[in-house]
């Protein structure tokens, strides 16, 4: 069974440019998360989807960040415009659902460097 797939693995952009990350969750997983991981820190939740609905986006900086999960499968996270402080690893994770208490499965992440 394929795991959570993220692309690209690495991205280098100049500040003020837009950037987008893509995530394909495990088949059948209704819950999808985007996390931000700064160097030396634990992952921090940006947004959580239940199917196509964003049920928790309280930590998403909405002035520059946006996300979508059309059709409740793949998801895209966008930053426009990017700032130097956005340099981090962006992790996508999925799980069958919140109620079951099952663990989240993580992708390898996209390492963003803003120069």
């Amino acid at each position, binding site marked *: 069974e394929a795991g*959570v797939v993220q692309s690209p693995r690495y991205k280098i952009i100049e500040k003020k440019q837009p950037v987008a990350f893509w995530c394909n969750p495990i088949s059948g997983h209704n819950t999808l*998360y985007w996390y931000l991981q700064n160097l*030396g*820190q*634990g*992952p*921090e*939740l940006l947004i*959580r989807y239940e199917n196509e609905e964003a*049920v*928790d986006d309280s930590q998403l900086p909405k002035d520059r960040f946006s996300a979508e999960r059309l059709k409740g499968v793949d998801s895209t996270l966008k930053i426009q415009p990017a700032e130097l402080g956005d340099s981090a690893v962006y*992790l996508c*994770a999925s799980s069958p659902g*919140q*109620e079951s*208490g099952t*663990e*989240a*499965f*993580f*992708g*390898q*992440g996209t390492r963003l460097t803003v120069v």
Partner: protein
Amino acid sequence: AQSVAQPEDQVNVAEGNPLTVKCTYSVSGNPYLFWYVQYPNRGLQFLLKYITGDNLVKGSYGFEAEFNKSQTSFHLKKPSALVSDSALYFCAVRDLSGGGADGLTFGKGTHLIIQP
């Protein structure tokens, strides 16, 4: 609000010795607790979880963790450390008081270094 504390940035253990990586949590209700491991340039890999039942849970690669409700702790343990266990370990919690509606909250991580 839910939170996790991992008091040690780094733990050094000699190969073959037992290891413990500490984790304490804070939630309003009952917790779901998780341990993940992260190798360099890799995503997080699930090790084990506590949902309910026995306080001692066993997971992948010989790891186990003990849930202690009175001390609000969920320490990760292994009887005999391997050099290959060297990695970054994260404890995470989900509060069930809101029906488990929140995402996972992670600690800052603990670097585990196993010395040959």
